[in-house]
């Protein structure tokens, strides 16, 4: 019996989107204000109301902090011992990502990450590495994001001595073999050819383009010709430019002794020349063009609606009030959008959203839902009505309390494993946030008032300035979308060459 090998998993793997499952919408993560029991309950008996159930104080808990080491050459290392299982896992995050690739080679960094691993090293082909790693039940993978690439591994403790040298070999002597680049290019082109098969993928892609602008590095997408333009030399150059200690943060967790592991990592990395620290790309952001945008698709019976705008970054002092607002407006099961649009009206299965936040740039503010073709206009109106209610109304004290409780009482889940603590610390290091940011977050949330939420709602939610994307079968809509204003059709056909 092997549940992991389901067809659904296979399908979602290919198409890089979420699989189908009969399940409720997710609730947000977020913990520590015990609610006082309102009445006593006889001991040994059962409560007859949830409010009677006593909530004792939470067990004292001090999360184990990783040890931070900075080498002479600038490289930062975090060591987090965890002796529960005989594994040693880790990752190296390297500054420089798809934001830093040239627009006419969009996809370069994604190809780089793929071929970094599959293309092998000067002494071993990628196929040989595959055989070696699979035989040892180990994994080494590279990945990319807008601002970084990473090389991560997972190994049984017994095999760490064999697996870690392979990580180092990939770091120092990658070969980017041409045959694997050709394979990756073929696969990436195939994924482009499939990018209009899934509604959710279309909605995510096009709404992000509307929010940031199609040419913004956070929004641009690879095309056949930008993939075709990437050559092996580009990958080699990228590696040479980015992969140096000044740009690297390593995190390691598992069943090891920190002092011995530190020595070992020092030996491995201290001799590498510092390299040039990456100067982050300068990216300008402007508001989206307001209006209705339509992707007309005739093989669906549901419309996806996504209303977008620019959000904020997390250094903004309003971040905490925005978090509370997002929780009460579009967060979990008890949020306004979920209760009013899904539960009360039955208009949607998936509905939600909030003001977007990111560490170092404005996130995408997005409110979205999926509803049958025949209630598309009703769906847009319902989302707008909720936004108007938030902007023009006043949040009630009780609503605020529930949202803050939800965030604060579940706060423990931000650091309930050693691995999560390590991941948080690495993120703060990468973005230059204070190491105690989580603690500041808790304090920031605690201070939020109803007036703060009302204020940030008015400041950051502007329905009239948002771009409204609809992906659906226009002939079946309940009303012509032009009744909302000018409709701009979006052509999603896949261009063969630049300059459409």
């Amino acid at each position: 019996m092997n549940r992991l090998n389901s067809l659904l998993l296979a399908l979602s793997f290919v198409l890089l989107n979420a699989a189908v499952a009969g399940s409720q919408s997710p609730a947000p993560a977020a913990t520590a204000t015990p609610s006082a029991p309102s009445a006593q309950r006889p001991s040994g008996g059962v409560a007859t109301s949830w409010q009677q159930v006593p909530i004792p104080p939470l067990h004292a808990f001090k999360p184990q902090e990783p040890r931070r080491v900075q080498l002479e050459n600038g490289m930062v290392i975090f060591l987090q011992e965890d002796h529960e299982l005989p594994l040693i896992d880790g990752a190296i995050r390297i500054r420089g990502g798809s934001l830093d690739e040239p627009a006419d080679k969009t996809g370069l960094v994604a190809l780089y990450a793929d071929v970094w691993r599959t293309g092998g090293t000067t002494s071993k082909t990628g196929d040989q590495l595959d055989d070696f790693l699979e035989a040892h039940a180990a994994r080494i993978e590279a990945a990319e994001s807008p601002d970084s690439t990473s090389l991560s591994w997972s190994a049984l403790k017994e095999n760490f001595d064999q697996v870690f040298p392979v990580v180092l070999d990939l770091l120092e002597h990658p070969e980017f073999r041409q045959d694997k680049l050709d394979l990756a290019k073929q696969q990436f082109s195939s994924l482009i050819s499939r990018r209009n098969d899934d509604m959710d993928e279309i909605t995510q892609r096009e709404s992000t383009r509307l929010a940031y602008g199609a040419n913004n590095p956070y929004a641009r997408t690879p095309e056949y010709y930008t993939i075709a333009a990437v050559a092996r030399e580009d990958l080699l150059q990228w590696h040479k430019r980015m992969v140096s200690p000044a740009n690297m943060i390593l995190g390691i967790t598992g069943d090891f002794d920190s002092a011995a592991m530190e020595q070992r990592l020092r030996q491995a990395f201290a001799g590498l020349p510092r390299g040039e620290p990456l100067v982050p790309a300068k990216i300008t952001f402007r508001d989206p063009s307001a209006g209705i945008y339509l992707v007309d698709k005739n093989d669906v019976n549901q419309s996806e609606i996504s209303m977008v705008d620019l959000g904020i970054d997390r250094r903004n002092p309003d971040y905490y009030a925005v978090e509370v607002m997002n929780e009460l407006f579009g967060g979990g099961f008890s949020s306004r959008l979920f209760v009013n649009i899904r539960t009360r009206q039955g208009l949607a299965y998936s509905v939600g959203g909030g003001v977007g936040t990111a560490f170092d740039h404005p996130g995408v503010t997005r409110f979205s839902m999926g509803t049958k073709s025949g209630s598309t206009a009703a769906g847009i109106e319902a989302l707008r009505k909720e936004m108007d209610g938030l902007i023009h109304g006043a949040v009630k004290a009780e609503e605020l309390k529930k949202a803050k409780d939800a965030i604060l009482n579940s706060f423990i889940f931000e650091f309930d494993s050693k691995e999560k603590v390590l991941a948080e610390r690495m993120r703060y290091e990468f973005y230059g946030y204070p190491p105690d940011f989580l603690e500041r977050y808790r304090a920031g949330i605690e201070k939020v008032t109803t007036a703060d939420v009302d204020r940030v709602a008015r400041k950051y939610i502007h329905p009239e300035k948002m771009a409204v994307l609809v992906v659906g079968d226009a002939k079946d809509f309940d009303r012509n979308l032009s009744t909302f204003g000018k409709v701009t059709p979006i052509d999603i056909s896949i261009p063969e060459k630049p300059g459409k």
Partner: protein
Amino acid sequence: MKNASPRILALVLVFSAAIALRAQDIASFEKRITVKKLANGLTVVIMERPEAPVFSFYIHVDVGSAQEVPGITGLAHMFEHMAFKGTHEIGTRNWPAEKAALEKVETAYAAYLKEKLKEVGRDDKKVAQLEKAWQDAVTAADEFVIPNQFGEIVESQGGAGLNASTDRDETSYYYSFPQNRLELWAYLESERFLEPVMRQFYKERDVVFEERRMSVDSSPQGRLLEQFLGAAYIAHPYGRPVVGWPSDLRSFSATDAMNFFRKYYVPANMVVAVVGDVKASEALPIIERYFGRIPARPAPEPLRTAEPPQQALREVVIHDHSQPLYVEGYHRPDFRDPDDAVYDVLSDLLSKGRTSRLYRSLVRDKRIAIAAQGGSFPGNKYPSLFFFFAAPAQGHTAEEMAKPIHEEIEKLKTQDVSDEELQSIKTRAKADLIRGLGNDQGLAVQLGEYQALYGDWRELFRQIDEIDKVTKADIRRVANKTFREENRTVAKIETSETKGAPAKGEPR
């Protein structure tokens, strides 16, 4: 590959190290796990894992869409949604008044449905009147509702990952709480299965219909899978969609849902697994007090219908705007079959990672697919399918996937796998087991699941022994037994720009 021999040596060493690990782990698990069957028949599994002051749980109910009959397809999943609607205490402003109002809704709905579905002599005017009377009764009942109060309590008390899922074999409920909410959790989770209330049922039915539109009707993969399973099964309920047929989603009632609940949500059909910062000596009495309140009822009758042996190849071709996809499946026995572990080995051999046979053949060498996998689907409890799936690379058709897949199958039938391949699969199975033991929610799911299916959580570890015993001869034998043309169902999407838009699952 150069230097094969030192590697094999290293491998053998790893292999024996992993066995030692396993023995040590199962012993340490024994010490931390408590299992108890309550007087009402409900099984409780508790594992002490005080890594942080939190715990996760998993409630497994032995009912899925396989328990549905025509007319109520989708009801198991629908009930799962309804389990979030509250109780006699949670979610209502006035339970006695709401109860009376909900009864009126049911009476009105039954009258409406009866007229609407009349095959002879239906009066459309009467249908409209009855529909309005039903809708008015719904509006009256809504007056008493505090929407989503159950979820609100869980969330404001610090619940994380609140969710549930339904598949063909089972329905499950899960989330995590801070450790000091154990009694609150026991109250909430026992209460929702002690006295669930079918409030706002018909609006939630609309929500579920939207879920169907999203996951099946408007999704090429969803449409393909529904057609594939419909073709592969002619008798057994695995051939029907978990989310339900549109007609049934427009018909079944809250009364149907309560009948389904009473039949299947009996304590003997449920396992509750709790993992985290809990002490069995403290938690068990609490769990017993609360869950012990659910009255014992007779376990439901087992499913009677079995899929008859397939007589001939079946094939479905969907002409769609989407890019092509290919899937073929072969009937295989259920998880209790002695060859179950052989199918797991086959699945790993064909699918796992970049050394897998389908990847190397279809993706790496022939370059005609961007992904190719094989495995078991759609269930475990009843005879299932072993499938082969491929997503053609740009410019290749679904049809082209068949030949190389059949070549791989032929190899499995006629040639032994190498010692290295088999050893590597066995090593990976152990490592994957270990990787799955590192978090509360994952452990709760696995312990609950294995306890429910096998009657013993230890089976999670014993599966590894079964995989260890698989021989090259087993693989050939099972491949020959299973992968026969008359046992095959093929479903594919071939791209067509011109053919009409696919069926939408609902009349215009």
